[in-house]
């Protein structure tokens, strides 16, 4: 079936409060497909643009390829034996899917936060230092400055400044997730991928992380997978709806969040958003 390449959202329909200057795209995805070993087609023919310094929400029912989509964007799919990616993903001028690029550099530019907070079993400080070491920041003073800076950025500094050398896993779930975000932004990424960052957190922690995401939007391009439609509506600028059709995850609706939520063109997407399907 022929894809309808969904156009980049027009600035004129942007929601209130959004700048009306021309939006740049941070990543462009063209005809992306992903097949796992055994022939299971996780994604087929996904094309979209991810707008720079905005939040793009990815929603859709379970198993429709949302996480797979994120993993394609920073080549974590490489870790899955037998998976095969087709199509093109561009990060500015870099072709992400090219076999010649340095994936470690790519993953520093495109960071990822997972559903379950995954701090390493090390101290809070070491968690961030370990990431920094990859960028050859070896100077102690510089390291300490960056650790403080990123922890302040995620609003964790005041909570942990007295126990930086304590185990990261003794933090609460929400704190752990913010530490993971701090660890990721210590690498100065351009894009942050977040895979249901709040779903394993309690409502209060979830709200704190959500506020954080909204603040981070000023500096980074965020792509957030979420099951929480209300959250997608609250925080995102653009929304993409994925759906399983013909045994493959596909993009069925994409546009400015307000438009998707109020006037989705695709009937499936519309009924999903209104809670009638999915």
């Amino acid at each position, binding site marked *: 079936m022929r894809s309808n390449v969904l156009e980049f959202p027009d600035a004129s329909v942007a929601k209130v409060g959004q700048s009306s200057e021309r939006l740049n795209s941070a990543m462009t995805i063209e005809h992306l497909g992903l097949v796992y070993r055994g022939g299971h087609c996780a994604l087929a023919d996904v094309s979209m643009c991810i707008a720079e310094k905005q939040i793009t929400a990815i929603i859709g029912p379970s198993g429709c390829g949302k996480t797979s989509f994120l993993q394609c964007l*920073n080549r*974590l799919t490489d*870790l899955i*034996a037998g998976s095969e990616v087709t199509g093109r993903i561009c990060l500015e001028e870099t072709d992400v899917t090219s076999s010649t690029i340095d994936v*470690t*550099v*790519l*993953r*520093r530019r495109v*960071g*990822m936060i*997972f559903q*379950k907070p*995954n701090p*390493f*079993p090390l101290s809070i400080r070491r968690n961030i230092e*370990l*990431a920094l070491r*990859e*960028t050859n920041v070896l100077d102690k003073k510089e390291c300490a400055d960056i650790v403080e800076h990123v922890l302040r950025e995620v609003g964790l500094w005041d909570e942990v400044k007295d126990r930086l050398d304590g*185990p*990261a*896993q*003794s933090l609460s779930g929400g704190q752990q997730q913010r530490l*993971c975000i701090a*660890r*990721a932004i210590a*690498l100065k990424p351009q894009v942050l991928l977040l895979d249901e960052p709040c779903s394993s957190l309690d409502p209060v922690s979830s709200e704190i992380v959500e506020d954080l995401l909204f603040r981070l939007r000023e500096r980074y391009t965020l792509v957030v997978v979420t099951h929480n439609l209300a959250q997608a509506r609250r925080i995102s600028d653009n929304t993409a709806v994925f759906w399983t059709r013909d045994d493959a995850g596909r993009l069925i609706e994409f546009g400015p969040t307000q438009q998707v939520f109020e006037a989705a063109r695709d009937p499936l997407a519309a009924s999903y958003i209104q809670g009638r399907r999915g």
Partner: protein
Amino acid sequence: MSKGWDPGLVLSWTVAVIVAGAFCWLLGDVFWNGLGRVNWQFLTEAPRDAGRSGGIGPIIVSTMLILLVCMAASLPLGVGAAIYLSEFTDSEVGFGRMIRRSLEVLSGVPSIVFGLFGSAFFCIYLGLGFSILAGGLTLACMVLPILIRATEEGFRSVPSEYRLGGAALGMSRTRRLLYLSFPAALPSVVVGFVLGLGRAIAETAALIFTSGYVDRMPSSLFDSGRALSIHIFDTSMNVSGGEAQAYGTAVVLVFTLLSINLAASWITDRWLYRESIGS
């Protein structure tokens, strides 16, 4: 079901009592007959009169040297192979599966066969003769499957979130291995090491043809040296009137084995405890 015997309970208790009883009997017998023999002289002096009197000093030294050679050879090889198997191959297909199958077979091979192999390969083909080196290397071959399996399990049980998290931070495979997987798998490496050590120190058949019988103090790794287990075998089977010395040696051997096991479980407990404080 308030009255009467539960047959399942009776059966399991019987089995438990038999197993524990056999262990206690064995241990009791060895210590009852041998403990009186063990003193400083026994531990340091050389055996006299084909082992009927004197001590086991050189034998302890030979045993330690054999173990040293065994572990020095098997530890890097074993950990390397385990890392390769768990991190770089797919265990279900192709080469990985072949290695795994071979290991399963190898761990079931009787030790006397290892002894013959060691004798043919290390002693004769490589020209090492009856030597501590040949004995240690033969034991290394025998211990490898145990070591690899235990270590590999350890690496496999490292949560995949660490690997994914590391990868997402742009850490290369080597660095993920070094900074994330290896520290997390270290307790299993220790367990594998101790299991291997336990098997090696108790081994007799594989050493008879390789490290030999000579009970003098070894002056180098190329000397023949008699291990504790062989000394027990020899004094109890080949030397009339050597049983008492054999019991004494058995006490030393069993005591060493128990200490190694206790030390290992202490270390891993401490380790696991430290790891789990956080979570």
